[in-house]
């Protein structure tokens, strides 16, 4: 992650989430990386944000951008806040890297009035074909590394994610399915055709 290509790919993702977030909101970005998204939100929406990341270089880059950041574990960090402290909690390409994504989601829904989630849809048809033909994890623009070097990556698909939300009584307020270019919206057969999915969630 972090290559120029991936950054460009993420542009639409960030644009869409930005549209949802009101002026002056209090935003928590889980897995904020170098703070590009929070900087964008700060400039465009005048939000007050804080990002969480475990890597000190990323925090240092956030600081350079004028983005407030916290180095540490996202789960433990959320425990120090009251319910609904944040207007928005953003998990953009973060959920799949957590060892217990459900727990992260639960905590995010507790401290955030709204939660924005974005992930690459593992059930995208080309991934399925790859598995069928090769019996191995696909390697492409999204999954750039060989399995041995790659970070932990929980395969999340639109189907299982939406079923999970229904079972946990998580309200899906908005959903956006993007094609494999991560730009063009689509409606039909989302679990098969979507490259990247973005949700706005809520739980009372």
């Amino acid at each position: 992650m972090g290559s120029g290509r991936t950054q460009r790919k993420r542009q639409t993702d960030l644009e869409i989430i930005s549209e949802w977030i009101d002026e002056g909101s209090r935003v928590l970005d889980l897995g904020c990386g170098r703070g590009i998204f929070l900087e964008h939100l700060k400039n465009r929406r005048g939000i007050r944000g804080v990002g969480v990341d475990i890597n000190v270089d990323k925090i240092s880059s956030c600081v350079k951008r004028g983005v407030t950041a916290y180095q540490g574990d996202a789960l433990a960090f959320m425990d120090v806040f009251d319910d609904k402290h944040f207007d928005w909690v953003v998990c953009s390409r973060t959920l799949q890297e957590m060892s217990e994504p459900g727990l992260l989601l639960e905590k995010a829904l507790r401290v955030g009035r709204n939660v924005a989630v974005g992930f690459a849809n593992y059930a995208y048809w080309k991934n399925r074909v790859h598995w069928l033909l090769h019996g191995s994890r696909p390697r492409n623009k999204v999954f750039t590394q060989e399995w041995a070097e790659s970070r932990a990556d929980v395969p999340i698909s639109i189907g299982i994610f939406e079923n999970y939300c229904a079972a946990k009584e998580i309200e899906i307020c908005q959903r956006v399915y993007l094609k494999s270019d991560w730009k063009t919206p689509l409606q039909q057969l989302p679990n098969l055709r979507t490259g990247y999915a973005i949700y706005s969630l809520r739980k009372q």
Partner: protein
Amino acid sequence: MNDAQSMTPEIPGDVGLVEYHDFLCEQPFTFDCGKTLPGFVLRYETYGHLNREKNNAVLICHALSGDHHCAGIHSLKDRKPGWWDNLIGPGKSIDTNRYFVICSNVLGGCQGSSGPSSINSQTGEPYFLDFPEVSIADMVRAQYLLLTQQFELSELHAAVGGSMGGMQVLQWGIAYPGFAKRIIGLATTGRQYAQTIAFNDVGRCAIMQDPNWNEGRYEAGKGPDVGLAVARMMAHITYLSDKGMENKFGRQRKASDQGNPFAAEFEVENYLRYQGKSFISRFDANSYLYITKALDHFDLYGESGQMEDSLCAMESRVLIVGFTSDWLYPPEQNRDIVHALLRCGKDATYAQLNMDLGHDSFLLHAPELYQLIENFIND
């Protein structure tokens, strides 16, 4: 996006020869404890130039045994430069080409500022224990008078300090909201816990049980040197770490002294005894008592037990840095400050550096720290 590549390469220089100045405040100064002095002296140094708008000043706050001399040298014969010379200077992280750096000594100290060894004009002899009990807030209030009267500042670009200096910069943010635009606190805490108070008290007992202490009344050069050296040796251990000491000394031995089986045998003993001995030549035992008490009394949690109640006044942007091997003011105590600030909606960043060198990590060669400070201060 690669931030490292966008850095302009610059060859850092040194501030070179510097000299100290004394700020004499002739107004009565009332301490938190209620006692009043007719005035006080603060010794300080400055590097760089104050701009016309008077908005480029950076205040450096020192730790317990530090002083006003944080960069440059006093004479070409000096063996070592000021204690934060690797951070402060032209082209360095705190760039003296851009910023006007001020570092003052603390009230209650013994390096030129008013303290228990200063002469009481009413008696003609040192104050000794008649010197008012000093608090971190008193130290900060005295610095405020220096900045506003001597330099006529109405703002600071940043206030930076580690350990006790970190307590001071937090106090700056609380006592004078918005005065310091940026606050950087390193290896610090919102209050000391029992273990740290315990260590401080062992140090104080070592001093007070030295017969030369004499209830605080001793002549210069005839003080409780043994007690002060032992206090320093023990405190010095708390500034290091298990791993750091092991890497530096292990079980290495020095040349043995045949006469005394209890002479320093291991390198670590030799090192600590040297630290103790060199400390007595530059530090006053009564100042040590006063300042360690100020540390013990510092408590941002207050009566409510909630740090938010004191930190909610803060209007500065804050950067707090903890060090993994610091067991004196461990990372969680640094994190707690940031948690409380964020809970009351303040702008606070937390970073944690993985260094082996314990509490003193912030004073040692730490490129990641310099980068963080530079990024924060130049933003």
